């Protein structure tokens, strides 16, 4: 019964979405306040219906209702409750339901919290949002219904891939989707602006909180996925340039560019066409990601079970949504009038430079990800584009951008001088060079990239702090004055400082973990000792045991440094009862210097000896600490006054300056 209710709710949601997609839009066109006002109730109703459907699906999973196909394929009575719940979205159909749920959440949020939006804009935004939803509802109801029944129901399900039975991975999809799908709001705002033919500071201010929120979630989601891969996959890697990882990274790059360029629109009334295009592209990349994962055109660890019919449907969806929006952009984009002028060397110029690098990086990742498909489609054979390509291309792009990031905040709007800005960064430069020398001295010249990356991190970090110090007149005014200024800084300003600092920390972590990881693979008998990265690992033996739905063999290690014991590590090799699938759990001890990481392998011979893989991963926790700081910074920015206080009213009699430059 629950499944039928869920199915019915979904169908109703489709109808409500159709209404939401059409009536307010027509109302905005006709100037009819009654029809425009329909946006809010329909958005809320749609959300309620999808929530019911989602609750129903969760219910059938939690109660292990094996008359539902989806539950049979992905669940089992032995699974712990948390994973019964996360199993709801750990499959193609369920994750689509999560997609539309989040689309609806954002729609309802704008409906409820967007009180200061002009009715016409709000109506259009919610209509566009609903149009996207309609596409997904149709996709689900026609090809991927999560509520399909099976008769007769089997006694038990096929279980969930043990890999997915992990707390980190349980929340990774919801977070990621809140990001991915959250950018649909920026998209809807952009389309609404194109329809209206107007982009101005007010628009930029209205769209910002939604973009920021989506960005925070996406950053968190990607970081979670990376962190999970690190502790689960057994050799300390955290990024593999897998097509689906790229599919989440590209919207992040575009979304970050969008955040920066919309600032320029807000403050200086220029770069409008570009910002609108970015908003469209960011969400388009999210949609593209959906296509890549579910259509079978690319090989990837993440790919859901693929079905060409689904691929065709999603492609059609893509063509309609992306093609339609880009066509609208081609037609209405030139109408957008920009008035701000600026010199290349200026704050705007710095933000433009950021956008340039981000966009180029995004395009390069897109090229690398799609190239095997493109070449094969042309009949040019099969190639692989792996980490060596992406690393070679991306790193030279990022270095200039990070260098510029420290300088940018020192530049003033409209026009500025580079030399004075650089002069203010003297101390940062000195510290950077010192850091480079010290790193080189400690680690030698292999690899050079590690030294460069760490130096860039120091440059960015000290540059950010220098800028903050200057703004609060540290050491130039009495300390109390500085503190007062500190307290009065707008939150968005804090957001920038903390966010950039977070990035510096992340880069330092990437440098350490990437360049100076130490690995040691050997066979150890109980009592054997191995030294890795200055830490001594002593293997103290292995024993077998049972978990809730698996059996395991656990190896114990004692780690010491300079004779003093630091920690005990346990690593397990598990075999899950239902699927007979083996997994490895690494024993990890995290410190700020780096991670101690031990993995037990197969038994060797019969004397209690095992293959062991022991690692020291320097600074690796900085990667996730840095991203956490970035997410916090974004959230802090969200609480800035200007998002809470009413946005500026549009001047209806705005005088446009002659000679204003178009877009």
């Amino acid at each position, binding site marked *: 019964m629950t499944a039928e209710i869920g199915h019915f709710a979904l169908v109703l949601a489709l109808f409500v979405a159709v209404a939401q997609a059409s009536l307010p839009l027509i109302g905005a066109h006709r100037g009819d306040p009654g029809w425009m006002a329909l946006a809010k109730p329909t958005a809320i109703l749609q959300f309620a219906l999808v929530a019911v459907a989602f609750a129903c699906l969760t219910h059938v999973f939690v109660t292990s209702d094996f008359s539902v196909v989806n539950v049979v394929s992905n669940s089992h009575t032995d699974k712990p409750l948390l994973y019964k719940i996360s199993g709801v979205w750990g499959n193609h159909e369920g994750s689509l339901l999560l997609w539309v749920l989040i689309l609806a959440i954002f729609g309802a949020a704008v409906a409820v919290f967007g009180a200061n939006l002009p009715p016409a804009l709000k109506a259009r935004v919610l209509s566009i949002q609903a149009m996207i939803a309609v596409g997904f509802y149709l996709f689900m109801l026609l090809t991927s219904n999560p509520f399909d029944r099976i008769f007769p129901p089997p006694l038990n399900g096929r279980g969930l891939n*043990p890999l997915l039975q992990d707390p980190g991975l349980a929340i990774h999809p919801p977070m990621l989707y809140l990001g991915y799908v959250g950018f649909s709001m920026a998209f809807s705002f952009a389309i609404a602006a194109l329809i209206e033919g107007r982009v101005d500071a007010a628009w930029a201010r209205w769209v910002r909180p939604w973009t920021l929120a989506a960005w925070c979630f996406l950053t968190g989601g990607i970081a979670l996925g990376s962190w999970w891969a690190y502790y689960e996959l057994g050799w300390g890697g955290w990024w593999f340039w897998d097509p689906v990882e790229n599919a989440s990274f590209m919207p992040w790059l575009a979304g970050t560019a969008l955040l920066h360029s919309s600032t320029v629109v807000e403050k200086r009334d220029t770069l409008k066409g570009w910002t609108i295009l970015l908003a469209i592209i960011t969400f388009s990349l999210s949609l593209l990601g959906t296509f890549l994962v579910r259509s079978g055109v690319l090989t990837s*660890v993440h790919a859901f079970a693929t079905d060409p019919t689904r691929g065709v449907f999603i492609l059609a969806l893509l063509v309609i949504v992306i093609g339609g929006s880009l066509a609208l952009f081609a037609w209405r984009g030139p109408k957008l009038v920009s008035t701000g002028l600026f010199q290349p060397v200026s704050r705007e110029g710095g933000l433009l430079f950021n956008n340039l690098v981000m966009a180029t990086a995004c395009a390069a990742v897109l090229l690398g990800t799609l190239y095997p498909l493109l070449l094969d489609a042309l009949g040019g054979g099969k190639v692989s584009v792996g980490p*060596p*390509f992406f690393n070679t291309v991306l790193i030279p792009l990022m270095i200039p951008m990070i260098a510029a990031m420290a300088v940018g905040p020192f530049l003033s709007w409209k026009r500025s001088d580079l030399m004075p800005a650089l002069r203010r960064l003297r101390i940062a430069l000195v510290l950077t060079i010192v850091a480079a020398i010290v790193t080189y001295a400690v680690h030698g010249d292999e690899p050079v990239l590690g030294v460069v990356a760490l130096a860039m991190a120091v440059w960015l970090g000290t540059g950010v702090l220098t800028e903050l110090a200057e703004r609060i007149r540290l050491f130039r005014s009495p300390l109390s004055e500085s503190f007062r200024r500190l307290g009065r800084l707008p939150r968005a300003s804090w957001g920038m400082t903390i966010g950039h600092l977070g990035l510096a920390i992340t880069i330092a972590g990437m440098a350490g973990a990437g360049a100076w990881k130490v690995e040691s693979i050997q066979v150890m008998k109980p009592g054997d000792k191995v030294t890795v990265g200055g830490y001594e690992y002593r293997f103290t033996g292995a024993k077998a045991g049972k978990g809730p739905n698996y059996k395991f063999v656990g190896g114990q290690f004692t780690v010491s440094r300079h004779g003093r014991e630091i920690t005990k590590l346990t690593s397990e090799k598990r075999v899950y009862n239902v699927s007979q699938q083996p*997994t*490895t759990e690494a024993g990890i001890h995290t410190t700020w210097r780096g991670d101690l990481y031990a993995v037990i392998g197969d038994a060797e011979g019969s004397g209690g000896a095992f293959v062991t893989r022991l690692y020291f991963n320097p600074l690796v926790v900085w990667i996730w600490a840095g991203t956490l700081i970035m997410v916090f910074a974004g959230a802090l920015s969200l609480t800035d006054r200007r998002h809470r206080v009413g946005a500026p009213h549009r001047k209806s009699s705005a005088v446009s300056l002659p000679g204003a430059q178009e877009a």
Partner: protein
Amino acid sequence: MRHIAVSLLLVAFPQAAFGVNPSEMLSDPALELRAREISKELRCVVCQNQSIDESDATLARDLRVLVRERLAAGDDDQGVIDYVVSRYGDFVLLRPPVKGATLALWGGPIAIVLFALIAVFVFFRRQRQTAKAPIAATPLNEQERQRLQDLLAEKEH
């Protein structure tokens, strides 16, 4: 369908990604290091996106052994890679080769950078042109003229 059956048997799930086993490793550390580096550049063809160094698939293991055997027999790094490519094609290279078919791939990022630079250059040049354009190109409209009068009147007082 049949290929799914085949693949299901051979796909290596990344969770058991142990990779190199001590029993495979060569005794000569320099040779072993070369073997590891080469393995990191070769794709595991039965996996979803891993190098043979990382993967636990049986075929990956056999390829690792093959790499080491050929190195021990005196092949240079490129020779070993060429052999594997002669068996499986360019697909097995994680770093795409630089040849006609991949010109667009390796050249692409450079082309994009150039395109971006040109676009920015054009943008700034157009900006400069607009800035230089005489401001009095369009006459004031009624509203603007009134404002001008008001401002001048204000100034006089």
